[in-house]
């Protein structure tokens, strides 16, 4: 097909945009059901101990109450079924503040909420473990094999031979995902079959976890999730609320809706854990790295382990003969942390890329030059060749576009009135992978027009998956996009990977593309004809007068991909303006330059990148969830306290993509952009703050008080 006719690569508007802005897109709790009942969760107000007694007499008498469910009457569930965070009402044990301890089901949401306040609970309290600062003095080894100490060469010992050193502690706080759509579920039983309407980043994962937890077969459970109001990792693995909705629906014999409140989102669906990262870099006077150590201490739940891999970027970013990556952990009475946008990479890059900036400053070297000087020719962690690596290009093209030469290398010297201006740069990376996914294409010929339906159990977090799959099918079949219907978000459809870890676009688009190739091949074979120019599937349907035809393709990553190290890369440039009196910061300009292979849709891609940038800026400047170590509760529990950045905090955002063709990781050359958009962002901002003020803030967020 001629490029100008191609749909892929064009900034096409989202095909579901109109549905969304007119309120017609159906999110989990937008489905109608007859005889609906409403469930509300109630939660523990201690962090550790046991429930001694639950008195719900008064609540039961409240108007409209259908059922009160606690560990005393909940059905037996499989707690190892694959849901995250426990809290399945299986016993009196309490392991964190805000653990679900019961459900009130009523005719209305309001009745359920009011009755929940009438339930009286007594506890036997145990001493809780919540004080991270204290516990971090005596951390333990994590269980995960991938978190074992990774030593290259002489490891950290090589620091001794370095002429110039940076050894600092970088801290990042607990953050919450807070997608616009709080986690909500509607459960409908049809005999021994269950339909769960639920925002799920991994459709098949939600299905198997729900089935296993409920002691059912996967085919008995159907997940429906065509639209999701964001997830950022919190809707990847599923949490107790998914299955508790089904339990409530079963116990009252009616469809049930359960939506978490914003306050409940703080202790129901994971979080990004707090990290203490010790970063040590040793270099020669000329700026060649000799030693690099990244030692992280973080926390996990008392009964389960999740640790974000903060050392991941450090493993591969720079050429260095001696290195150490290590993790230590403290189990705490808090909900299990979980994958959060750019898990490990966004937080880890804050430490690594701040430290690189500190080193550049000590060396009196431009931070871009320092990075280029230590560019690795192959993946230092495993010796594999890069499928492609765009770090240097991102840095160079970004510097030009951003006007990096205007940066004053001496901090605190760029002043406009009362404001200090600073520039910062930081790099990032995220793996590019394709995961097993299947797709069915159904073609039909009606009134001389060919229509296609694409079916795949993919999910669209709101990022534009629907749209890029329609574009892929349009090009693959030779059809205009308006004749493509994309069906996703349903576990009855062919199984697919999840919208997690930046595997969505590559896995789904390749599956659809493979199905397009396959259906064209099959139509060609069916025609029995030879063509000089390969016709499209659409042309064959017409020429052969075939009214209906379909095929399925099961796609995998190319076998060759394993031999290479494939990643997206970026360089982030920040300009900040800081009021020198009040310490208030504005990011006046931000540019992210990304090398992520084939960009399927520059418009949705840009949205993804600047969305990641905004969160990264939030991470740098405003976002922090604070625990009161006396109780284990979050003291910041609404959007009045948990500050996401506002429009006024951020000026101009620009996203540039490096034009690259890398067909090693997958046939379409798609590397993924969801995660990488936040990686390196916080460091770029923090480095700009240093350049503006001469103050190095190593503990996020950089609030005005830290700049006084």
């Amino acid at each position, binding site marked *: 097909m001629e490029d100008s006719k191609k749909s892929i690569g064009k900034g096409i508007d989202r095909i579901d945009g109109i549905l969304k802005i007119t309120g017609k897109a159906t999110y989990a709790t937008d489905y109608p059901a007859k005889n609906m009942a409403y469930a509300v969760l109630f939660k523990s*107000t201690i962090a550790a101990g046991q429930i001694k007694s639950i008195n719900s007499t008064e609540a039961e008498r409240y108007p409209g109450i259908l059922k009160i469910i606690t560990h005393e009457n909940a059905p037996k569930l499989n707690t190892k079924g694959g849901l995250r965070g426990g809290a399945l009402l299986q016993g009196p044990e309490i392991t964190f503040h805000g653990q679900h301890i019961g459900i009130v089901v009523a005719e209305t949401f309001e009745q359920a909420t*009011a009755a929940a306040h009438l339930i009286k609970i007594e506890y036997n309290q145990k001493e809780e473990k919540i004080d991270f600062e204290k516990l971090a003095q005596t951390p333990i080894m994590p269980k995960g094999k991938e978190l074992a100490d990774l030593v290259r060469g002489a490891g950290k010992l090589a620091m001794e031979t370095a002429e110039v050193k940076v050894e600092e502690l970088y801290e990042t706080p607990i953050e919450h995902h807070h997608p616009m759509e709080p986690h909500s579920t509607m459960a409908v039983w049809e005999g021994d079959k269950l339909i769960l309407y639920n925002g799920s980043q991994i459709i098949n994962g939600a299905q198997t976890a729900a089935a296993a937890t409920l002691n059912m077969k996967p085919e008995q459970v159907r997940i429906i999730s065509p639209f999701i109001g964001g997830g950022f990792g919190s809707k990847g693995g599923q949490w107790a609320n998914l299955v508790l909705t089904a339990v409530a629906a079963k116990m009252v014999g009616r469809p049930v809706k359960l939506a978490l409140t914003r306050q409940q989102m703080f202790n129901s669906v994971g979080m990004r854990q707090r990290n203490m990262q010790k970063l040590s870099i040793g270099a020669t006077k000329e700026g060649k790295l000799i030693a690099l150590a990244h030692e992280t201490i973080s926390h996990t739940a008392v009964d389960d382990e999740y640790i974000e891999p903060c050392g991941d970027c450090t493993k591969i970013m720079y050429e260095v003969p001696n290195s150490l990556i290590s993790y230590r952990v403290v189990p705490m009475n808090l909900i299990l942390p979980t994958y959060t946008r750019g898990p490990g990479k966004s937080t880890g890059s804050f430490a690594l890329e701040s430290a690189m900036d500190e080193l550049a400053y000590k060396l009196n070297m431009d931070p871009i030059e320092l990075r280029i000087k230590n560019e690795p020719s192959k993946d230092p962690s495993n010796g594999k060749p890069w499928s492609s690596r765009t770090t240097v290009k991102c840095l160079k093209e970004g510097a030009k576009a951003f006007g990096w030469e205007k940066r004053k290398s001496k901090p605190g010297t760029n002043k406009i009135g009362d404001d200090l201006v600073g520039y910062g740069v930081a790099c990032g990376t995220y793996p590019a992978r394709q995961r097993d996914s299947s797709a069915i294409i159904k073609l039909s010929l009606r009134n001389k027009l060919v229509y296609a339906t694409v079916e795949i159990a993919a999910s669209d977090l709101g990022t534009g998956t629907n749209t890029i799959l329609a574009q892929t099918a349009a090009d693959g079949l030779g059809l205009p996009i308006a004749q493509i219907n994309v069906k996703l978000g349903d576990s009855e459809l062919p199984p697919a990977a999840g919208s997690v870890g930046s595997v969505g676009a590559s896995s789904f688009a390749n599956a659809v593309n493979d199905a397009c190739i396959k259906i064209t091949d099959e139509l060609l074979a069916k025609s029995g004809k030879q063509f000089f120019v390969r016709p499209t599937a659409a042309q064959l349907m017409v020429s052969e007068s075939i009214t209906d035809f379909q095929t399925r393709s099961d796609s995998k990553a190319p076998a060759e991909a394993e031999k290479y190290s494939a990643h997206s890369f970026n360089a982030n440039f920040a300009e900040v303006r800081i009021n020198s*009196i009040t310490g208030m910061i504005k990011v006046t300009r931000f540019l992210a330059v990304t090398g992520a292979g084939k960009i399927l849709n520059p418009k949705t891609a840009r949205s993804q990148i600047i969305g990641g940038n905004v969160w990264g800026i939030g991470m740098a400047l*405003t976002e922090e969830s604070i625990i*009161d170590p006396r109780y284990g*509760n979050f003291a910041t529990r609404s959007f009045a306290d948990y500050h996401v950045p506002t429009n006024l*905090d951020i000026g101009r955002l620009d996203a540039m993509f490096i034009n690259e063709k890398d067909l090693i990781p997958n046939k379409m050359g798609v590397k993924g952009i969801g995660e990488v958009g936040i990686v390196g962002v916080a460091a770029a901002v923090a480095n700009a703050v240093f350049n503006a003020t001469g103050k190095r803030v190593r503990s996020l967020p950089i609030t*005005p*008080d830290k700049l*006084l």
Partner: protein
Amino acid sequence: MKPFKFISATNPGEAIDMLSNNAEAAFLGGGTNILDLMKEHVALPNEIIDIGNLKLQEIKATATGFSLGALAKNTETANHSLIRSNLPMLSKAILAGASAQIRNMATNGGNLLQRTRCSYFYDISMPCNKRMPGSGCSALEGFNRMHAIFGWTENCVAVYPSDMAVALSALNATVKVQNNNAERYIPFKDFHLLPGNHPEKDNSLTHSELVTAIEIPKNNFAANSAYVKVRDRSSYAFALVSVAAGLNLKGNVIQFANIAMGGVAHKPWRALKAEQFLKGKPATTANFLKAAEAEMVAAKALSHNKFKIEMGRKTLVNALELALKG
């Protein structure tokens, strides 16, 4: 939320009657605060009296100054030409608060009566003397970065959140209040209270009183006033520290200065020591610094808000500088 009855009043007399008849009733202004508190189970009225139909929206000049209707919206007040040209400090203070959407709903009366944003006050699983007298103050030894440095007691260390009120305090406003057929005027300094032994009481209104207007005496601050607010993000955040300052100058000599601070106490904090210092002195940075230092002497920090003393000092000086520049 606890179920409640919703009724509407057509005139102030009726509204006051409705309220005095029920100790558990509450007025509804714009609802941006009371509804949040009800959803969080902090406010538990069994009856909500809508006062939106009362004719208390007028913003006007009077013989002695200006009058702001209690039910005029924050947005209209801030953007009203009378206010912008005569009381720019007030306009700026209102616009520094909340978000455009909230200001469109918020009423002047409701703004004065909004309750603290102390997060323990909002979390009903936590002890809080203001919400439940006698239960203790969680913030005293807890997370108190946002809390008071002036006038707190061990019973409560919360701050009062309104920006508008900080300017009103500096402007010597009076709150016009009506109860069963009598009217009274409460000077601003007596309207909000320090926590003392009764943090549950934010202000000196009694249950059956309706705020009808806010009156502001004429002043000469328009040319030399400022409102500076320091916060964790540029919009939609409460003040870490804020300062409203107005200078009355003759040449370069300060005849008198009116200064109030926000984010530092259980009420708008009139910086009387700074005002006293500046009276009759030349308007110089050196004097501003000394005035700020004089004010901050009495500040007493909690475990997480030591920065507010330095930030308060700097912001005070900054506000005076900006007021001087005009």
